């Protein structure tokens, strides 16, 4: 890797600053507390699909392992339990084993915020308000030259989107066996594949390119429970209260009604950390304090995460993250 100075990106970088400023203004006006957080942590939440950066702190002949945080969730949820109330973080996050691409850098900027007392669909309105607020200050341009509007969401449930863009019926989406058969029929390689892998592959190939391209951003909601992450399940038992939104075919962010059942969380911790071991990923210290905090009680809330550079790409009308930066590590 090398250091690249790109002063020609100055105009785009100024848009980055403008969007950053309006984000802070929005949250201040809406009574969210801005939280500065560490990026080095002695323990992490185990996640089997995210590799992390590990380092060592040396002092007085001792060595202690520290990890760069892949998301601020580990700290923000503790603060929510402690009673901080509505809060947000806009800062760095780190993910290893994912090379630079137009939409991702191993070191990136994350906007994560939590609002108490609302569910995922109410959060959709809050996110839209944020996008509208930024739009008033900056001028979004879509990749097709027309103005990208944030007046409303184009909404599809995941089942609707699979039917509309991939021709996969609802019963095929939710029954794993039928889903595999359908994928095979479509020409996907289903050997040594999980439902999650196949879902993501079809999503990226057939659905995502159709999202956020009709003049407004597209909101997908109600993901199959296999894709629940930390989201609460719906009463139908097969979908999770999770949303993601897309602009110009690119996922910009997502949010979910937070799972606050600590037993379920603990199960997930064990499952994920075993999967990490099996996949020979970095064996990091597990944050037991996080479960302890959840045991105490996470209030009913919804959390949202937005890839900040991806969001700014819309306002700067650029197709890759490196166009926003004055210094790139490539």
């Amino acid at each position, binding site marked *: 890797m090398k250091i690249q100075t790109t002063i020609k990106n100055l105009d785009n970088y100024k848009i980055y600053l403008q969007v950053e400023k309006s984000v802070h203004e929005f949250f201040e006006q809406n009574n969210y507390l801005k939280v500065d957080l560490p990026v080095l942590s002695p323990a992490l939440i185990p996640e089997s699909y995210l590799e992390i950066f590990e380092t060592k702190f040396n002092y007085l002949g001792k060595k202690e392992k520290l990890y760069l945080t892949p998301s601020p969730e580990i700290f923000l949820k503790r603060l929510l339990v402690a009673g901080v109330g509505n809060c947000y973080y806009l800062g760095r996050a780190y993910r290893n084993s994912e090379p630079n691409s137009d939409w991702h850098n191993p070191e990136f900027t994350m906007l994560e915020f939590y609002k108490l007392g609302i569910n995922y669909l109410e959060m959709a309105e809050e996110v839209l308000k944020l996008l509208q607020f930024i739009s008033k200050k900056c001028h979004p341009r879509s990749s097709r030259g027309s103005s990208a509007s944030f007046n409303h969401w184009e909404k599809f449930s995941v089942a609707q989107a699979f039917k509309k863009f991939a021709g996969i019926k609802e019963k095929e989406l939710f029954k794993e066996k039928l889903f595999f058969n359908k994928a095979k029929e479509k020409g996907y390689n289903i050997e040594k594949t999980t439902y999650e892998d196949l879902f*993501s592959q079809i999503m990226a190939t057939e659905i995502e390119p159709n999202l956020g391209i009709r003049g407004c951003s597209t909101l997908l909601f109600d993901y199959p429970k296999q894709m629940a992450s930390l989201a609460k399940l719906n009463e139908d038992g097969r979908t999770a209260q999770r949303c993601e939104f897309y602009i110009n075919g690119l996922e910009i962010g997502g949010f979910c009604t937070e799972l606050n059942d600590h037993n379920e969380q603990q199960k997930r911790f064990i499952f994920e950390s075993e999967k990490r071991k099996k996949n020979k990923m970095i064996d990091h210290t597990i944050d037991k304090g996080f479960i302890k905090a959840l045991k105490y009680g996470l209030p009913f809330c919804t959390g949202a995460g937005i890839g900040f550079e991806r969001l700014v790409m819309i306002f700067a009308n650029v197709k890759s993250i490196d166009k926003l930066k004055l210094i790139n590590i490539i």
Partner: protein
Amino acid sequence: MRVNAGNLKKGEFVTFQGEICQVQKADFYSPGKGSALMKARLKNLITAKNVEYAYKSNEQIEVLDVTSVDMQYIYKDQENLYFMDERTFNQSALPISLVGDISRFFKEGEKMFVYMYNDKPLTIRPPMSVRLKITEADDAAKGDTVSGAKKPVKVETGATVMVPIFVKVGETISINPETGEYTGRV
């Protein structure tokens, strides 16, 4: 050669749904749940259309063993560009629709690499830079002192290029044929 899709690179050739395609773009993509993907844009070399496909990054795919042959661009007609292998004098035709916009910068007699697979031409390897003479240009407007100001000029192949206002008729310039941008005077 079989490779992990995670190692797929721009410019390589693969068979997709039974037809030969060239990788236009390949980006590693981690959807957060489910294993990482390699999002590829593949150009079908028969239809010249692009298709997007996300491979699982650990999926094994066959990258075709394609050779590049040094050829001379000789002429074009309404539909095709014609190239000649200078050692064998064999001629190969490639549709203009496949080679795309960059062909407007090709000068007859220029040497170029053509990708061949099983003795059939697939497409060309675009040159990094082409040198062309300016045949038509307006003089810079007096008083136009804006730094970085540009004007359109016509080059010997008939294509139009934006150049700095100080560049004149008769000068040879270098152009990046893929972007159509002026890169300097020669």
